[in-house]
């Protein structure tokens, strides 16, 4: 082996940039979170049309997931990758392109989401031009990252790098397949999947966005920064390898647990549940590994805010990954789904795991990146306690809210009727918990503000010019070489288990990446493809017809306003649900739903059978002033729908895009606007008949009402036995 040393420096400027961005977007994302928390107790804070809950909630989730946690991952990854591989990043230009590209995407999200431009899929709301931007920036990151690995001076890829590789690869796969859609104009598109299949793809994506954007990247960070802060190696490197392979293999199967008791085929839901329960093991292996890294160093936790943050982060990871498998068990899920319990669960993960790990990392990095002392250790301690109390207040109150509402929804009285038939009763009961949650959020955000002060003051004390220490390491010999002096092990079994072949793999990031991809993709093949390709999974219903052009336009308004953030359209076959909402939802009812709008949280009641429940006029008044109909309603008012003209001309493009996806639109592909106008006149005439004299026939409200009145009515038209045998007609939806 050559003893010639090569000299090089690390690029810390890029880590500094990402660190500042992490803090900034963290503050923005969490402040929006605080605002929407307050909107639930003070509905007057919904300043329409741009700042309503339905439009801001996706902004909050996108900002904290992709902007805050995303930038934190990049910051830590750029810092640690260079050091673990003993090389500078492949290209500073690509690093900077990645940074500015990512910030541009965040800004685009912050502008389009309040504008109502959304694909209506959770954590994948951004419209197609931005999606293409994300793909391009991700490729820039990946090229830079893999080229850096290729130029490394350390043979063995440390386990943190494995986690980074798995994240980069899987996020790319998830992003591309979930966002396949047909544009219907600039900033408007329909996914190529419909109904059950769209739901399956979305939660395959949604669950793994949590897995591969919030879990694996942060585990990579944990496996690097925890040993650094504790100044000792990770407790068990072997366990970390087992943790890695088990996680990347199992996580990808777990998505269907988001769809228990929905119209998803039951085998898929059961499979998702089983893999979720299995995930408990590797997750806790990882947690234990993180905590035991502190063996013999616990006394340091007392003095070091960095370690305090890390300990809470890893503990929160343990709690969230215990709860996740528990929530994925069907009987638990039947209670928890659609309630705030899920919101509590994600915040244990986001505030506890991602937030605490990020802030611990920031405090560890500050003196090193800015080459000075941390401005105030004390302030960091205060931040820690504020964040901890904030998180505990937030989480406990929202757990209570979730359980309360879940139990109230399913409560029957002694006569066998729903104990709380008015949905609003179950909402009002949550108000004290919602206030407590907002207080918890306020404490957490205050901590972030203190962190900002610490960053600013530390930055101000930086040296006039950053020192660039020169590091020396020998280059890697070309090709794989056994360590000098080591003889080849004798015997095939010995050779196999001595892992020469595995070392070779690790030396070849390409092969390693392919194996990781295989571990991830195998689930997609066994779990997702059958749903698309085996007809019995989505029995069609002859009576279900496509939406009329006006209803389609109304559906797009429903999407624009983010109604699906608070209203589900999926009645589970459980007695409390069928009592409250009507006949349970069937897979065949959604074959024209591009995208599916099943929702995941019932802040308001389910709307799957809303059609015909109330007169048209009720909807007009309810949209204009929700509290004139339901005095305690927390729904935002939408008076703008009664005054804004409907874009009739634009409906043709929508119908055409749908027709392209295989929705049988017939004559509507030629005269959608005329058909829409005719139906709008009928709706408007009914409203006049019911007692409102205003002329609404060319306003948006008519389209929305037409859509709402259609919801869930098709199967009633078909008469008894509308459920046709599977083979009667080919499912029109799906990617073939």
């Amino acid at each position, binding site marked *: 082996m050559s003893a010639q040393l090569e000299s090089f420096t690390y690029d810390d400027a890029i880590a500094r940039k990402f660190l500042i961005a992490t803090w900034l977007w963290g503050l923005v994302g969490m402040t929006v979170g605080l605002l929407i928390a307050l909107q639930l107790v003070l509905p007057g804070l919904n300043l329409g049309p741009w700042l309503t809950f339905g439009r801001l909630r996706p902004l909050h989730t996108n900002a904290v997931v992709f902007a805050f946690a995303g930038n934190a991952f990049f910051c830590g990854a750029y810092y640690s990758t260079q050091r673990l591989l003993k090389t500078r990043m492949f290209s500073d230009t690509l690093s900077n392109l990645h940074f500015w590209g990512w910030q541009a995407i965040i800004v685009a999200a912050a502008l389009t989401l309040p504008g109502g431009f959304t694909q209506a899929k959770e954590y994948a709301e951004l419209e197609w031009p931005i999606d293409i931007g994300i793909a391009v920036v991700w490729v820039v990151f990946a090229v830079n990252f893999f080229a850096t690995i290729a130029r490394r001076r350390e043979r063995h890829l440390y386990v943190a790098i494995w986690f980074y590789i798995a994240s980069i690869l899987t996020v790319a796969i998830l992003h591309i397949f979930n966002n396949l859609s047909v544009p219907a104009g600039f900033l408007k598109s329909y996914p190529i999947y419909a109904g059950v299949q769209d739901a399956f793809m979305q939660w395959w994506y949604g669950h793994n966005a949590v897995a591969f954007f919030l879990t694996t990247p942060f585990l990579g960070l944990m496996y690097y920064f925890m040993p650094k802060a504790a100044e000792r190696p990770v407790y068990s*490197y072997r366990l970390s390898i087992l943790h890695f392979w088990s996680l990347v293999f199992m996580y990808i199967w777990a998505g269907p647990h988001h769809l228990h008791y929905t119209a998803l085929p039951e085998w898929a839901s059961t499979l998702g549940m089983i893999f979720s329960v299995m995930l408990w093991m590797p997750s806790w292996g990882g947690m234990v590994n993180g905590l035991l890294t502190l063996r013999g160093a616990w006394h340091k936790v007392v003095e070091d805010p960095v370690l305090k943050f890390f300990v809470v982060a890893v503990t929160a990871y343990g709690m969230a990954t215990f709860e996740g498998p528990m929530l994925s068990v069907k009987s638990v899920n039947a209670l928890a789904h659609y309630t705030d319990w899920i919101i509590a669960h994600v915040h244990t993960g986001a505030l506890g795991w991602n937030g605490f790990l990020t802030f611990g990392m920031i405090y560890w990095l500050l003196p090193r990146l800015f080459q000075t002392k941390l401005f105030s250790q004390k302030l960091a301690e205060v931040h820690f306690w504020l964040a901890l109390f904030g998180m505990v207040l937030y989480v406990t109150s929202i757990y209570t809210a979730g359980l309360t509402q879940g139990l109230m929804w399913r409560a029957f009285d002694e006569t066998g009727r729903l104990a709380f038939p008015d949905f609003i009763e179950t909402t009002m009961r949550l108000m004290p918990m919602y206030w407590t949650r907002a207080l918890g959020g306020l404490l957490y955000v205050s901590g972030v503000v203190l962190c900002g002060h610490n960053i600013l003051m530390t930055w101000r004390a930086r040296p006039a010019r950053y020192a660039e220490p020169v590091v020396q390491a020998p280059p890697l010999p070309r090709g794989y070489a056994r360590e000098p002096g080591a003889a080849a092990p004798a015997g095939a079994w010995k050779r196999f288990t001595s892992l020469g072949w*595995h070392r070779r793999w690790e030396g070849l990031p390409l092969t390693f990446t392919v194996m990781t991809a295989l571990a991830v993709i195998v689930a997609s093949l066994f779990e997702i493809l059958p749903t698309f390709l085996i007809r019995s999974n989505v029995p069609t219903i002859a009576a279900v017809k496509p939406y009329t052009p006006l209803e389609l336009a109304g559906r797009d308004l429903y999407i624009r306003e983010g109604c699906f953030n608070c209203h589900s359209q999926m009645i589970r076959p459980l007695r409390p649900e069928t009592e409250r909402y009507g006949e349970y939802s069937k897979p065949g009812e959604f074959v024209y739903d591009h995208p599916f709008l099943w929702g995941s949280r019932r802040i308001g009641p389910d709307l799957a059978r809303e059609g015909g429940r109330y007169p048209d006029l009720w909807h007009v008044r309810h949209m204009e002033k929700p509290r004139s109909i339901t005095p305690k309603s927390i729904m935002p008012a939408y008076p703008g729908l009664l005054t804004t003209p409907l874009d009739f001309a634009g409906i043709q493009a929508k119908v055409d895009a749908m027709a392209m996806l295989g929705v049988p639109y017939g004559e509507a592909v030629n005269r959608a606007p005329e058909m829409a106008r005719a139906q709008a006149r009928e709706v408007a005439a009914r409203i006049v008949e019911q007692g409102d004299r205003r002329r609404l026939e060319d306003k948006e409200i008519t389209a929305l009402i037409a859509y709402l009145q259609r919801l869930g009515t098709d199967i009633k038209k078909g008469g008894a036995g509308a459920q046709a045998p599977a083979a009667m007609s*080919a499912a029109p939806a799906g990617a073939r």
Partner: protein
Amino acid sequence: MTLTDVMSNSGLAGYAVVAMILFMAVFVAIVLRIFAPWRKREMDEASRLPLDDGDDARARPGVKR
């Protein structure tokens, strides 16, 4: 005949068990491989990589090169 026809009529249910056996076998192989006693030294070396990143002198605030 489309791919959907082929998949719908080929009776694939039994293959779930085959998949389970394959997955189990891969898992056992990984565990054996990772915990093989003669790999201990190599694993210990790998676990020290974060602590040996070449610029630790700078890592301590106030210490400049």
